[in-house]
């Protein structure tokens, strides 16, 4: 399990190779990469600013990974979240999971993204020709995160 919060870009290839090497007897690798879209509800996106809460952001991601490990058999997990100014088509976030079986790798990767979106302290400010907007939490992300709620965990 490894987490990075960084301003620089990441190399998906190198990350996947490292995960594969570190995850002995893995049969399934799943990756998610989130990109800055060039069109938003407000129009053509010029850039976005990603802010986080240093200290809490690492802790929140760590908690999500601990929970994922308790729910699924994982051989490796890697999360990278970028902060700072990003442009359309830039990579924002990567979640990669390794498991013996694909069901666990898929579920854990989706779970981590859904919780990251709704419980890790990151903020996006979008800049369009019309000005800047701090984006709201998406209702669809909240709904997705709620699918994972089980009795007794992560209130």
């Amino acid at each position: 399990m490894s987490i990075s919060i960084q301003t620089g870009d990441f190399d998906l290839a190198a990350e996947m190779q490292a995960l594969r090497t570190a995850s002995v007897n893995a049969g399934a690798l799943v990756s998610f990469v989130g990109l800055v879209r060039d069109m938003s509800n407000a129009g053509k996106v010029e850039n976005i600013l990603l802010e986080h809460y240093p200290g809490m952001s690492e802790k929140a991601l760590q908690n999500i990974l601990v929970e994922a490990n308790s729910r699924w058999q994982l051989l490796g997990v890697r999360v990278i979240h970028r902060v700072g100014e990003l442009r359309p088509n830039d990579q924002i976030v990567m979640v990669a999971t390794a498991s013996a079986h694909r069901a666990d790798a898929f579920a854990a990767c989706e779970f981590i993204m859904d919780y990251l979106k709704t419980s890790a302290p990151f903020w996006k400010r979008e800049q369009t020709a019309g000005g800047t907007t701090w984006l709201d939490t998406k209702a669809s992300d909240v709904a997705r995160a709620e699918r994972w709620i089980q009795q007794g965990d992560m209130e």
Partner: protein
Amino acid sequence: MKVNLLYFGRPREYLKLAGETAELSANAATVADLLASLRTRGGDWAHELEETRVRCSVNQELCPLTAPLHDGDEVAIFSPISGG
């Protein structure tokens, strides 16, 4: 009592403040009380810290605005999270 206040997201930009140490009266028992007290500063403070606009954490755990406060807490006030 004193709390260490941090601002993130929209309030951090519009209040032009990343953090401060706030001295609270004994009446400010919850985050909602703290917000009410901060809103009395008026102007952007009254607007940006409306309860519907902000979310909070206490000691780096997300919590509802009804969360109780204790001396020395690290309290963060921010717009809805939107990472990933």
